[in-house]
């Protein structure tokens, strides 16, 4: 019985992620529009866009290879897998043991590499340029993210996300100064990873400094739809990760369906606030030159490492 409800929760969580992810993007866009004194687009615009893209036919470059066509499915699958692992509704997920935080970073890296390779496949200048920049962001963001996780792991003596969240949410309450550093680092990494200002600008298509959009310039139709959907999923997963690590309250332990009564509303509130804050950050900061990005991410990396050191210095009692 326990197991069955766990499976159900897992499926629920997945479906929720797939459905809510575009909404989160829409929400952020709306908040941003408000903050910028623009009239906001519809909250449902991302869904309509996806539907439109699925309808459209795919235009492939003559020399696009199989890799190019397979990549969107693959990237999408990676993000789905990631969203299945991050605890949002319960910490007791059947897929939880399949991948711990290190593997989660691995999933993101896998998706990144596929999208970068796909960007290089057609052989246009924009694609390779985007791929190169994406990898530049990636090689700095990945270790930073890993170090954020390591800080959490050192506190909770585990790399399993479920255990980490359980430790933070349900064991004795303790203040971890190291998590503050980790939180700042994580925010910076999330901005970079989700192609947000100040690293990238998700709203433009033709700008010499763009990254993500440059890579997927050759995609169209259902391929583009999958990639966009994967991008929204990624943002959703990152948000949930941040919430799970730094604001874990409200994620119930155990696989009881009744827990949903607490879990769902708290998730909705947290995501709403999180999305708003993201919009605030994006509005308040200016886009950086691409070569400032390594500095930005280097700072994030240092912050994460510092967090780990702070933990070892102040919190292990030595």
């Amino acid at each position, binding site marked *: 019985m326990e197991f069955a409800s766990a499976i159900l929760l897992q499926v629920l969580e997945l479906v929720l992620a797939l459905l809510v992810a575009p909404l989160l993007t829409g929400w952020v866009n709306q908040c941003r529009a408000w903050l910028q004194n623009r009239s906001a687009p519809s909250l449902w615009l991302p869904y309509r866009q996806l539907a439109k893209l699925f309808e459209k*036919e795919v235009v492939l*470059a003559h*020399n696009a290879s199989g890799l190019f066509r397979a990549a969107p499915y693959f990237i999408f699958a990676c993000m789905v897998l990631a969203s299945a692992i991050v605890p949002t509704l319960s910490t007791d997920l059947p897929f939880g043991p*399949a991948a*711990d935080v*290190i593997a989660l970073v691995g999933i993101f890296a896998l998706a990144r*590499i596929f999208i970068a390779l796909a960007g290089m496949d057609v052989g246009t200048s924009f694609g390779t340029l985007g791929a190169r920049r994406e990898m530049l962001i990636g090689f700095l963001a990945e270790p930073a993210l890993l*170090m954020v996780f*390591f800080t959490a792991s*050192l506190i909770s003596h585990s790399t399993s996300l479920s255990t980490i969240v359980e430790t933070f949410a349900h064991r004795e309450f303790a203040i971890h100064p190291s998590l503050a550093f980790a939180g700042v680092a994580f925010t910076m990494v999330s901005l970079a990873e989700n192609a947000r200002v100040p690293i990238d600008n998700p709203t433009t298509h033709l700008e010499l400094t763009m990254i993500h959009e440059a890579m997927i310039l050759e995609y169209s139709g259902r391929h583009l739809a999958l990639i966009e959907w994967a991008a929204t999923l990624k943002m959703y997963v990152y948000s949930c990760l941040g919430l799970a690590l730094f604001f874990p309250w409200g994620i119930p332990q155990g696989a009881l369906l009744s827990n949903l009564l607490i879990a769902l509303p708290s998730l909705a509130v947290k995501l709403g606030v999180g999305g708003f804050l993201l919009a605030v950050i994006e509005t308040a900061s200016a886009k950086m030159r691409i070569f400032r990005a390594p500095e930005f991410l280097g700072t994030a990396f240092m912050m994460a490492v510092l967090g780990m050191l702070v933990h070892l210095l102040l919190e292990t009692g030595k």
Partner: protein
Amino acid sequence: MPLPIPELFSIDWPLSLVVVWLLIGGAGLLAPRNLAFVGKTLYPLGALVGLALAVVAFEALGEAPQTRVLVLGLPDLPFHLRLDSLSALFLLLLGGTSAGISIYAAGYLRSGEGTAPGLQCLEYHLFLASMALVLLADDAYAFMVAWESMAFSSFFLVTSDHRKPEIRRAGYLYLLIAHVGAIGILLSFGVLQSGGALSASNGVADYTFAHMRATDHDAFWASAAFGLAVFGFGAKAGLLPLHVWLPEAHPAAPSPVSAMMSGVMLKTAIYGILRVSFDLLHHPLWWWGVLVLALGLITALFGAVFSAVQSDMKRLLAYSSIENIGLLFVGIGLALTFRSFDMNTLAALALTAVLYHGLNHAAFKSLLFLCTGSVLHATRERSLGKLGGLIHHMPWVAWLALLGVLASAGLPPLNGFVSEWLLLQAFLFTPGLPHGYINMLIPVAAAAVALTAAIAGYAMVKFFGIVFLGQPREEKLTLAHDAGILERVGMSWLGILCILLGLFPVFVIDKLDAVTRPLLGAGLGEAVRAQGWLLLAPINADRASYEPLVFLLMIVAVVALTFLIVRRFWHGRVRRGAPWDCGFPLQTARMQDTAEGFGQPLRQVFEPFYRLTRELPTSFDKLPRYRMVVEDHFWYWLYLPVAHVADFGSRMVAFLQQGRISIYLLFSFVTLVVLLFLVRG
């Protein structure tokens, strides 16, 4: 009476297989120019032997050590051989990898390139046999003989195409560093066998490893032996700052040889350092671990950073090998540190990561080198800047290369990820170390490892993207052909190994338990077995877990489902068109990003690592030209100064020989007088 056939795990099997390898090599001399015979008969035979070796080594894992004494050797020191689990594991690595490479080589061999095929066959199989003997040797002499045979047979393989000066230079550098390193190893054995006791040994020299194991070493001499061993084996492995031969020799060698060297030979150095530091020396000091860890980290970071800016595909892979060797040394350092504080389970975790990564690196790096071999044959081009778009012309090679690239970048669910995962897990335990500073510094080292892994991914994307994707940068590339059937078999074998090693870590770790247990008295076997074959949880499931198979199935399921759903609810229409040209219709394939361009961001970030020479065109140039040379600081910091000192020394001694006989007589006279003065009363 039928011949008694030894058990499959007996040491007689590997031994006879080594002899068969030697015989196959010798057979190559019978018809040195007969390509069909050498290529289609001898190399496949060698591959079979490799496979057989893998099987018997696998059987021997976990069995009690067996020894043999041969008639060969020095009078009081016949060759002692011993097959224990550590040897068996590396023999397995050798056999398994060489099976793929030999089959590939059978298809790869062409006539008319340097050394005659038959001779090359001899060198190649001598190389294999000597590596096997290195792993089996149980005394210092046998070890050194095998070790140096390995060095010079591979030297001849590297210089197969010795008409080219740069290849000769590479071979020279390689053999020189190998030889100096070998002297270091030899001296290390010298210390080990005496145990630092200058007079106690009353002149009887016993060079067997058994004796070394039984000897107690005081801290100073143990450290001396360890230091010399790190120097010697590090020179072979490509540890900084003795790495310079590696990026020269790997590109110079024919691709199967590069694969063999990178995949297997470097591991023999790892084997050596493990043998010395865990088996022959009893108790490591904590700073050994820290030293090795630091060296490994620097090496790994250096290798990764350099591999990302290379513009020659084999050099790129060679630097990537340096990076992986660095990671292996990081693991060894970690294991030593844990071991020095008697935290044996954690030491076993780190050591398992090392061994696992050794296996993985052998599989994926060999695969990648073989892929470059096929590319090289198809295009006669090694420079990344002149390749591109090959996925259309050589799909087999491309997809197998993609497999290797993903594994090499350490991505789940392939094999590279598992070992890096284990390594990082080991790092997360370091706060438990009872030493104030190390337990804080080592997590920082974990950050560097993570950074290294990420940069490695960068380099791998560059490698695959530039070679196989995009548009062909040269006209002739459209004529490229895919690899032949034998080459495909060889590469596929290694590719399958990558996948299997990635998907079934529990089996592998269970087997590695047999290796770590005799060395450390601890292993991960029980812990992983307790969780079942699906879930990998080296310590316990709460602490960390990973299920590669579930991982893969999930991805495959989602991909399949998505595909079906999209087809079901929408459509699968595709229209082909020209790529978007940004409104500039004159774009050619040459305008794609170059290899240098792809590496440029990294070059900028890690500028102090490189020694850059850049020639930028000016707007007045008739023939604008951009040239960029990335060099290694170590040449200027270490090697050239050493060369200068040697040169200075030789200039100094030249004063001894100025041609004037009176001066010569004076030398003799002064010598006489000085000696007389010294012995006087």
